[in-house]
């Protein structure tokens, strides 16, 4: 689940639903905003979900809290090996948020597939398209 800013909203429901139905398996959220202190949406819920094991993994990117701005796509690249491994293991990838972010995330995914999947650019595009066709990579950008 990649949902910076208000894009995180649907993922609350995802996590709640998985908890309600007692879903097994792992989940991973990457969230971003400008400031940790004021814009970490639903912070207390994510902290609680992590603690309760309802969310396995949470990575964060706060763009204005450090000298160099950090965005979700950088977190993706940093964790590229794991991202690729999760995809290979059949993970469903959801992206929600601003259009420009969606584009950057897509480009980052492409780089990850090239680097960690040992594919060339064309094959990486095909890999992502296939994920989309099979419903394993869904985007809701606005």
């Amino acid at each position, binding site marked *: 689940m990649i949902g910076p800013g208000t894009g995180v909203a649907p993922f609350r429901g995802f996590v709640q639903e998985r908890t309600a139905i007692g879903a097994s398996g792992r989940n991973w959220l990457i969230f971003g905003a400008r400031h*940790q*202190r*004021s814009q*970490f*949406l*639903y*912070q*207390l*819920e*994510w*902290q609680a979900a*992590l603690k309760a094991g309802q969310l396995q993994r*949470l990575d*964060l990117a*706060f763009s204005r*809290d*450090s000298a160099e701005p950090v965005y979700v796509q950088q977190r993706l690249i940093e964790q590229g090996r794991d991202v690729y491994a999760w995809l290979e293991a059949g993970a469903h990838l959801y992206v929600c948020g601003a259009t420009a972010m969606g584009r950057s995330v897509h480009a980052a995914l492409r780089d990850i597939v090239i680097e960690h999947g040992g594919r060339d650019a064309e094959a990486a595009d095909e890999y992502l398209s296939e994920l989309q066709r099979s419903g394993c990579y869904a985007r809701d950008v606005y």
Partner: protein
Amino acid sequence: MNEVLSPVETLKRGSRGLRGTLRESLGDAITGGLRESDTQLLKFHGSYQQDDRDLRDERRRQKLEPAYSFMIRTRLPGGVATPAQWLALDALAARYGNGGLRLTTRQAFQIHGILKHDLKPTIAAINQTLIDTIAACGDVNRNVMVSANPVESRAHAEVQACAQALSEHLLPQSRAYHEIWLDEQAVIGADASEPVYGPTYLPRKFKIGFAITPINDVDVFSQDLGFIAIIEQGELVGFNLLVGGGMGVTHGDARTYPRLADELGFIRKDQLITVATAVLTTQRDHGNRSDRKLSRLKYTIDRLGLDVFKRALEALVGESLPPPRAYRFDHTGDRFGWVEGFDGRWHYTLRIESGRVRDTDTVRLLSGLRAIARVHRGDFRLTPNQNVIVANVDANERALIDVLLDDHGLAHALHGAAIRRFALACVALPTCGLAMAEAERYLPTILDRMDALLSRYGLHDEPIVFRISGCPNGCSRPYLAEIALVGKAPGRYNLMLGADFQGRRLNRLHRENIDEAAILTELDVLFARFASDREAGEHFGDFVVRVGIVRAPQFIVAKLSV
């Protein structure tokens, strides 16, 4: 004592020299705070985690955790800072903190409102100014205080040097601080053991102060370990040794009490480090480590008995202590405005209410002191009364300082009621986690109202020591004030009366848990009586004791059942 150790003791022992998991806590972006255990260890590094209590409810509704931020406190023996250091701290406060610089009641700087990810850069930058924050909080020796006014004699500089040396001697030796904040490479096995503290440091905080007569600005009787400099013919010969002072009390726990330090005897100046270390290690070995409410040195002494404590100390020092020498204190305050020193240099003491260096529309302390720091060639001295001295000014540079003071609305900062000039307030709400009532934010208001009453009886110029604390922990040393308010609940205070003007007598509880209206009604009656019945030159605190409004406060005898 075979009681269960307090959790903090276990934590210290397992902290690998105060490292804990601080590094991991700092890197964890999921929270703006630290892990619970690391919040304790952070204190030893000179910082406290706090949160804005005004925002708690609102943030909870927004599903945000409390607005965590950090306070950083410097270690600054005697409160001496160079203009370059002043400017650097000022810049750091502007960049990373909120609300300017704060001067503490222990002569240190505090910067508040630092966010977690800025903590490391801020501490690193402070260290670049050659000031550190090691042991500014925590169960260790805290910032060593020294009478701030450098005018009296050459001996002042010597006392300052003694305090500095003692402060260095009592620093923790762990390299944790340098590794965590200054990126020093960890060398396996190179960590020095703690020769003075041992693996669990002290049972509780430990406070040291040096007083230089005739001004007891450091409130030497409130310190765990106090030294009164004995100066003969302008030469420092030694110190009277005082042990076992302390302010902190817990509401509703009769086992806790404020206590004045006892004078144990006279020591030569060459004995200073030995004696101080002996007192500290005696407390280290005998202090209560199971109940933190009872672990300050004052309780250790009352439990062991003063004689036993003294004999143990003399055994460590290797000789018995001769009786204390005679001395005299005039007051606990500061001398405002220009004062000429023994060497013809000048010192300007500027009043800073509650130690808050900030700009308002009319009084621009932050920019004024910044402007002064840019041209000043002497140094700054933070006073135990939260004021600042622009110290060591050449006679021919006074005019320049005067102009800058005037330009920033600071030249008139001395006008107004005398009670304003002595008042102390702790930080309290919204920052301090222990606060039960307002202190610093409420001070200007309550002072106005008290001044209105005083003026009614012609007491506008009467110096009265007034202090307010947001809780009984007593950071503003309220139990040594002629009038004190100690917070009990929002808007409610215990009214304490009857300490003396020299800081030698504790006050007593007069009215419990009263609101402002009741406080002012009480004071109105008292001020009226004081104005009509006082003896010539009699101070308010002495008056209320003499006429029996409060019983003469005494030393409190230990009634510990340990």
